[in-house]
């Protein structure tokens, strides 16, 4: 699956079927700091992700 990490402005390919929570653990991202979007729909951590999905990891932190 294609995974876009907004905070780092980078896209990676992740070749493992897993849940959204497992993806964040793999990427070492704290779930309280992001919103997950799968194929343009907001999802929760229990969502299953498959190889053809396009995932966006949006950062909720802004400002200064």
């Amino acid at each position, binding site marked *: 699956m294609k995974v876009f990490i907004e905070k780092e402005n980078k896209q990676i390919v992740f070749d493992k079927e897993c849940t959204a929570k497992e993806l964040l653990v793999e990427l070492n991202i704290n779930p*309280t700091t992001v919103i997950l979007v799968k194929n343009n729909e907001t999802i929760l951590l229990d969502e299953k992700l498959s190889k053809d999905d396009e995932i966006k990891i949006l*950062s909720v932190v*802004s400002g200064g």
Partner: protein
Amino acid sequence: MKCSSCSKKAVYSSQGRSYCKDHFLNYFERKIFRTIRKFSLMKHEDKICVAASGGKDSLAVLYMTMLYCKKYKIDFFALNIDEGIADYRDHTIKDLETFCKKYDITYHIISFKEKFGYTLDELIKKAIKKGKKPCTVCGILRRTLLNRGARELGATKLVTGHNLDDESQAYLMNLFLGSMKHSAALGPVTGFNSNNKFVPRIKPLYFISEKETRLFALLKGFEVHFSECPNINLSFRAKVRDKLNQLELLREGTKNGIVNAFLEVLPDLKEKYKNTKEFSYCKRCGDPCAGEICNACILEEELCQE
């Protein structure tokens, strides 16, 4: 996961409840309106100025203020401070302008360049050489321009987009620094000494987390570019923010717990520090300040007069 109130797919879950898009938007609005009413943040006779950077917090608070003010027929407008931070503020100002045009909201922009002769980027280079932190310089000058701008435009209240994350961070920072006096100036209505030159600040997003605000902006389709201030990582706040997010992950509700515990002691803090500081007026600009010259004028003299 399904919404706790209907059978639709959930987009958000918190404290054992989950919400579909419609129920989340409803929850968000109710929570903010309840905060406005509970702390009497806005009244019919007020003229509300919304401090709006164009980031997600300010667009969310501007939108919700618009809904509330239209419902209760209260006068309001938006005010942006353009500090002059290249590749950051220019994007958020564009977002703000698009937003205000779409919703027909009156807005004003005041810039550091116009008021101080320099952009923040230019001032930071000088500040760092003198051992000052960027966030301190920006914070003092921005707060000053917001207050002056709001006052000169006739506002009786200044709305800021400060949220649950900001407030819990600020309280913890003050605890770590042993500065309870500064915490006495926090809360849904800011300031502990009323002064006719100081426009009271109000925080309708007080119980709303950053995550809820971003989700709201996303679900409403607001055009918000992801933008983190390039100077944030130099700040103590960024370290507190990251630790707090780790604690929130370990125990959901930590930020709420901190803010609710703080609100229990806030009346005592306000009482304790109520009259300990006599306000005088800055001999240069006339703004309220603790000493003879306000912090903004001191900074201006140190950084701008070369």
